[in-house]
């Protein structure tokens, strides 16, 4: 059943983490999962909460796929990946509701949406289905951290400009540029940060062009 052309050697843990956070940052480099990146980042706290939930789902799903990849029929691998993601999302949703009701009140709305995040399934297809457990774990961790990092930065920018506060602490008396808290402001924030990311990449000798992704799904 397995038609796996396993790539020679898996990258090291450090490389995979760096890759997820910087080189192939899901939001700024791969341009994946932009919908949630716009929708929830009106403040830092929301960004962190959703980032952590995505991190957990990404790591758990990558590990599950790495462990079961030889048993998944290649013709139904996408439905099976979706199923695996949905199981972990629902498990986390139910666990939060039961044991952390205060957190659930804040992020419950967004957690269920993680099932449809393009970044998670794309890592399963691009990485976890081709590599064994350990590198898949590090890839999931790196990508999850990269998403968390991106959401934090966008959230900080929008909260600061839109609300004049950081983490809920009011820094300016009024809302300086309410526009940035509105959905349209989210697009501008991400565009500005993406441009900044490209600039940094170029200064560090990179190409400055996104290397992958393609699908601009949810």
């Amino acid at each position: 059943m397995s038609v796996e052309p396993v790539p020679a050697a898996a990258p090291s843990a450090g490389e995979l983490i760096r890759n997820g956070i910087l080189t192939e940052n899901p939001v700024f480099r791969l341009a994946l999962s932009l919908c949630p990146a716009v929708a929830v980042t009106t403040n830092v706290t929301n960004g962190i909460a959703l980032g952590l939930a995505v991190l957990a789902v990404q790591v758990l799903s990558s590990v599950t796929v790495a462990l079961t990849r030889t048993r998944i029929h290649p013709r139904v691998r996408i439905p099976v990946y979706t199923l695996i993601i949905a199981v972990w999302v629902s498990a986390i949703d139910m666990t939060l509701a039961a044991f952390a009701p205060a957190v659930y009140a804040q992020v419950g709305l967004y957690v269920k949406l993680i099932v449809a995040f393009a970044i998670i399934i794309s890592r399963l297809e691009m990485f976890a289905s081709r590599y064994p457990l350990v590198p898949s774990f590090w890839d999931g961790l790196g990508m999850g951290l990269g998403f968390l990092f991106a959401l934090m930065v966008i959230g900080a920018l929008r909260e600061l400009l839109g609300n004049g506060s950081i983490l809920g602490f009011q820094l300016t008396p009024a809302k300086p540029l309410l526009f940035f808290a509105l959905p349209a402001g989210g697009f501008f924030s991400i565009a500005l940060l993406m441009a900044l990311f490209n600039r940094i990449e170029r200064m560090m000798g990179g190409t400055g062009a996104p290397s992958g992704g393609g699908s601009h799904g949810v």
Partner: protein
Amino acid sequence: MSPDLPILPAPPRADRGEMFRIAMNLTLFSALAAAILGGVWLATERYAAAARLAGEKRAIGELLGLGESAEVTEVEQFMAAAAREVVYRAHAYGDDAGPVRTVTFSFEGELRGREDLAAPAAAPAGGGAEAALEPLGRMFVARQDGALAGFVVEGEARGYKNRIRFFVALDSAFQVAGVRVLEHEEDPGLGAEIATPWFEGQYIGRSAGDVAKLTVTKDPMPEDWRAALAGLARTPVADWRAKHGALLAREGPKPIYAVTGATISSRALTDGLRTTVDHFRRRWALLGPQLAEGA
């Protein structure tokens, strides 16, 4: 992660046996997923229900400033559309196995019956002869040291996106003691601000008559009022009201200050409160004596 990763080769055309294996493969994974989710649900549902109940109990206690010894009665309201009746079931809050009093009124407000049961009968929404009962929300009656401490009424409003579920607490004189938004899907950073103490606190101290005429203004909220309301998050309501008496007297007759950029959400909650408080007053005038008698 080099970009030249090999693409999975297209699998050969499936024959019948292959198609069967594909179907079985997907079925197997689906069955496993269902088993895992069922297991997680079984393991967590008890705690989730307890967490919901604890959250509501805490909200009721905080809204009315109740002590440990307070007794709370939960009153569930149902409508039997076919029989044109409203049915109330009252029992000690959090105790689903204790004595229940059922009171039935016609739509016109005429008493149709009252019944005390030592333990709840089978589900009130009986099929067959008895038409289905449609839940109309709940209210809670709190007593502290034998005296009526106040009411908490559950209400719903149509928000910007979806329904807003809230508790409104009234003291024994039908003055608003507090408002707590329990569930909503308003926009984070905008409409979601209605669920913060500085917005919810604006309703405190208004009489039921004031609530019936309450409007929303887009004027900016005065800074001293905003600062005082923010303090609600840290102070019990009674202390807070004592401390800010002058401000409350100044702001009490004024409209509700809308959340900047979220006038619709602000109006939605205000309208929902108006309806809920109005309905409750009229229902309690009928129901109150029936619950008090022989209790």
